[in-house]
């Protein structure tokens, strides 16, 4: 590989990683707070993309979709948490299993409502062009995605460290029960967290659509599988873990697939296995055993 090629592929890998961060951030947030790996996260992501498709069809505005889809998904999360997960509070594994069922339902409902065609979304006007970089032109949208990912991570970091909600989240991560004993309305906190996680999945659905497309099967691949890989590699339930995971997995997957194309499918999972063997809690994970 020439230096120019390495540079271009690194750019591809990092913009892919930024998409993976946006995709995985919600999963990581929910796990951090509630100890629940939301296996419906990929279905939420898919739903966000289809909502965006409808908004763009109706109004022609990508930016409106970027507002509506996260809001719609947030609302769904806000309803689902008390309706389903709250009933199993404290039984984390059962909560995880529940989300498998939720995912099966959502995917079929999407198919019934939106149909099962292969669709796509264009990058919004202004971001659909290309700029000249080392080694030729590069799509503006992928640079935007990188900026967006960094901004999202920074925003989440500020919320975590500087706001009351962030304080509650950090406290909840440490000990949710104690938080309840201190008079915090944990019901509302958990519902809000789950809603925020779903909204982030919806956001990913919109942002990723111009690159990953909108089609049946996207809930599992890339949706659930890649977001799981990112949070497991980075470390479950911490923001820095999700960042580290996506910065590592994005480029690793990109280079892995072009260098070892005959074992491409196994590359990322081999990375997962390797990281977990060396560091069972992921690169930056908390030491905690969830049951």
């Amino acid at each position: 590989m020439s230096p120019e090629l390495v540079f271009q592929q690194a750019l591809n890998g990092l913009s892919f990683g930024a998409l993976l961060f946006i995709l995985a951030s919600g999963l990581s947030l929910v796990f951090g707070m509630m100890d629940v790996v939301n296996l419906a996260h990929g279905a939420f992501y898919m739903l966000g993309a289809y909502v965006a498709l409808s908004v763009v069809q109706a109004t022609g505005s990508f930016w409106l979709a970027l507002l509506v889809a996260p809001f719609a998904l947030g609302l769904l999360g806000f309803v689902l948490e008390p309706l389903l997960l709250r009933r199993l509070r404290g039984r984390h594994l059962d909560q995880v299993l529940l989300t498998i069922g939720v995912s099966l339902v959502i995917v079929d409902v999407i198919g019934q409502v939106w149909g099962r065609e292969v669709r796509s979304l264009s990058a919004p006007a202004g971001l659909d062009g290309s700029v000249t970089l080392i080694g030729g032109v590069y799509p503006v949208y992928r640079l935007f995605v990188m900026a967006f990912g960094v901004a999202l991570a920074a925003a989440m970091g500020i919320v975590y460290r500087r706001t009351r909600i962030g304080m509650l989240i950090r406290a909840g991560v440490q000990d949710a029960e104690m938080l309840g004993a201190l008079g915090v309305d944990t019901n509302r906190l958990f519902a809000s967290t789950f809603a925020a996680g779903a909204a982030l999945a919806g956001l990913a659905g919109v942002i990723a659509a111009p690159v990953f497309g909108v089609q049946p099967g996207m809930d599992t691949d890339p949706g659930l599988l890649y977001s799981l890989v990112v949070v497991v590699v980075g470390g479950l339930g911490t923001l820095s873990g999700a960042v580290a995971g996506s910065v590592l997995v994005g480029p690793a997957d990109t280079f892995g697939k072009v260098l070892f194309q005959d074992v491409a499918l196994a590359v990322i999972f081999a990375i997962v296995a390797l990281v977990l063997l060396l560091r069972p809690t992921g690169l930056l994970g908390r030491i905690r055993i969830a049951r």
Partner: protein
Amino acid sequence: MLVALGAAALVTFPYWSAPWASRFATTLLRDALILAIFALSLDLLVGRAGMPSLGHAAFFGGGAYAAGIAGQQLATDQLPVTLGAAALVGAVLALVIGVLVVRSEGIFFLMLTLALAQIVFAIAFQWTAVTGGSNGLSGIGRPMLASIDFSSPDLMYVLVAVTFVLAALVVWGLARSPYGRALIGVRENERRMRALGYDTARLRLSAFVIAGTIAGIAGALSAYSTRFVSAQDAGLGNSVRAFVTVLVGGAGTLGGPIVGSAVVSLIERVVPSILPTDLRISEALLGLVFIGFVLFARQGMAGLGRSAWLRVSRR
């Protein structure tokens, strides 16, 4: 006694049901029983040892490939060889994956098993020279025991049913043995078991290997039934399916995975042909049933049945 009669009736189903049931009923039941064996083996992990594996299809698929490839490479149709190869590959895969995962628990265990199973799937999908790759493995030989050919639908059913009865007996025996009770001890309180001098990691690993072995045999039966192996047999969808089966039926019970496989087979195979073609919601139905059981009847159908029985018998 009752159990023996039931087993005999099950094994001979195609023969006494012939006047009123079509051959379809036999193949439906055959496939449900294969799912039941698969689910029984997963339940050994989920229900008994408290190890929620979301990668169990790796062993099922591994066994299916092993039976097909062993038959072709060794040019034999003999079941002891092919089923043996399936059991061996299931066990070895489970040993390798098990060593990596037995020390993690709960959600970590779930995700690790998922990731490692995806590697198995990826190998199956891309190693075309050995597995047939994305096109799958065809040309599965005949299931022969000495000179008996089990490939007719009725005899294939009998082979599956007998294997099912044996697998159920093994799981039942294990569950009642001191070993089975030790597994439950590990599930309930691993620290105490360790304090009592048990090597809990080894206990969990052994359960993993036994479950992998049985799943491998289930996979081989599936390969013989469909005369084909697909990489999807080792994929996430198949793992989820087994998991749903166990939970709907009832984890930690012998009857659970069996009842569960009946329910899942019904939703997968019978419901779609009743629903209008435009209404494609059988996955959603399965999801709803699953949610219902996780929320309201975590003990599954078997548990529901048992409590209903207790209520009736107390009167």
